[in-house]
């Protein structure tokens, strides 16, 4: 009888312990008392004929408190040379109706600018229909889909960028210019050799530069670094980084310490891997200033110490 009671107690303890573990492992995570939102994908590139339409789904998630959300599409311009966007989120933006008929939400429960309730942890798929009118001029148009959540008077917005190229034949002509490809003219041996590459899009359509920077030292092997295929939008200049291991953006630089002599670098690229090749060169002379200085200092110190020792010996003698 006592054994049965002990066995029952053991089972109850096991069951209780299991339930506690289950609560921690399987119940949904608690959400912080904040505004937290996410959007995917963060960028969409579309090439479309005037008068045609396409549809793109954006997933938005409210990871913070319950709140009221809304979505809208607004134009953007480049903010700087790093790829940042300047969202023109202004109801008085010149001619707001100009792009109104380009976009529609296929979900009838969601309308541009109208608020809808979104629960904590809720994910919503926003299907955006994009249809530039038949008389749309052939060129690029840039927009940001803004997802906004309000709660207790605080507003947070998150955006996804839309790069839309309107083209009748799907083969837009792309134009570029190297604004700057530079490196220090003179560099100390064992120093780091960095390159600056700035490319301007002089055409009407965005492109990604496809190319490399080849660095030829006087002594040693040629090194090739890959230019990052970042988007360069029309009428904008972008400071282009390099790319390592397929997705790590890095400063364009000679990977090793420079030694002595000429380092001739050539940047070359095409727009989206097609057409005309653009190139520019930069030459750097590496001289061992710090090594010469260090050796001179050692010799000078040795000379001075030796001279002082000789004088002390003379005085002692």
């Amino acid at each position, binding site marked *: 009888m006592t054994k049965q009671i002990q066995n029952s107690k053991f*089972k109850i303890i096991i069951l209780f312990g*299991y339930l506690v573990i*289950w609560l921690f492992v399987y119940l949904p995570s608690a959400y*912080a*008392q*904040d505004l*937290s*939102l*996410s*959007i*995917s*994908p*963060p*960028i*969409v*590139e*579309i*090439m*479309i004929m005037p*008068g*045609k339409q*396409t*549809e*793109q*789904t954006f997933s938005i998630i409210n*990871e*913070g408190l319950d709140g009221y959300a809304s979505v809208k599409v607004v134009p*953007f311009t480049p*903010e700087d040379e*790093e*790829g*940042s*966007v*300047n*969202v023109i*989120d202004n109801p008085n933006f010149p001619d707001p109706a100009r792009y109104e008929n380009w976009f529609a939400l296929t979900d009838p429960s969601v309308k541009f600018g109208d608020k809808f309730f979104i629960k904590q942890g809720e994910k919503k798929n926003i299907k955006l229909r994009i249809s530039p009118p038949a008389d749309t001029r052939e060129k690029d148009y*840039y927009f*940001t889909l803004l997802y906004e959540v309000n*709660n*207790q*008077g*605080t*507003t*947070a*917005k*998150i*955006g*996804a*960028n839309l790069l839309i190229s309107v083209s009748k034949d*799907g083969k837009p002509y792309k134009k570029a210019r190297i604004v700057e490809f530079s490196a220090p003219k003179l560099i100390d041996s064992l120093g780091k050799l960095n390159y600056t590459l700035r490319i301007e899009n002089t055409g009407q359509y*965005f492109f990604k530069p496809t190319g490399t920077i080849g660095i030829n030292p006087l002594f040693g092997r040629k090194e090739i670094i890959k230019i*990052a*295929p*970042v*988007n360069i*939008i029309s009428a904008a200049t972008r400071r282009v*980084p390099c790319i390592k291991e397929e*997705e*790590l*953006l890095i400063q364009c630089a000679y990977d090793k310490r420079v030694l002595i002599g000429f380092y001739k670098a050539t940047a070359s690229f095409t727009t989206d891997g097609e057409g005309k090749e653009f190139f520019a060169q930069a030459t750097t002379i590496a001289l061992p200033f710090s090594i010469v200085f260090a050796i001179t200092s050692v010799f000078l110190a040795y000379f001075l110490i030796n001279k002082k020792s000789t004088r002390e010996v003379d005085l002692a003698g």
Partner: protein
Amino acid sequence: MFLIVFVFTFFSLAITGAVAQGVIESPNYRIQFPNLNSGAGIPSSTNFALDSTLGQTGPGQFSSAGYLVKSGFQYIHSIIPFSFAISKIAIPFGTLTPQTPATDTSTLTVSSGGAKGYQVTARENHPLQNNASDTIPDTLCDAGTCSQTAAAVWSQNTTYGFGYNMSGNDIPAAFTDATYFKQFADASSAESAQIVMSSANVGRARQSTIKYKVNVSTVQPAGTYKNIITFTATPSY
């Protein structure tokens, strides 16, 4: 009993193990595939090509009559979503004592992995204002030189106004230390939203602290003053 536990565990695993799927569709195609974390090659045919950017919802490229769509950065295979969080949704300063600055903070967190670089901007709808339309003006800092674009030292208790300081990851260089403040850009004066965090690189849980500061003079009319700060996070293009 152990049978019950086993059955319960089985159903728990079955229920929580749902896998999301991405859908790309057009009048001509419907491509549905799971959110992959590995893959093999780029599928293609003579009529269309599909370039998968793995690890995102709805990534890839398809072409059809009249359009071509690419979503996600083709050279970023990160599974980090683009997300933005603000730790506090209200900043109550409480009762203000003239010439005694009040401060409060909140944390901004950005995970930009799938979005490469990013920026977060901030803008107020108007300066702090009460129901009688009295305002606490945006601070000019100790030397009268700070604005929505320029930071300056604000440490004196006889300097009044409302402003902010930033510390942490990816903040503007102008915030040299905790004594440097700026005004918020003012939408009612048509000022452009100003960058409070930015990075050209992929990052996960990049975090900064924004410190709000307010100080009033002895002649400031009594009342409840408030405004709305809007934070906007956008990915790089």
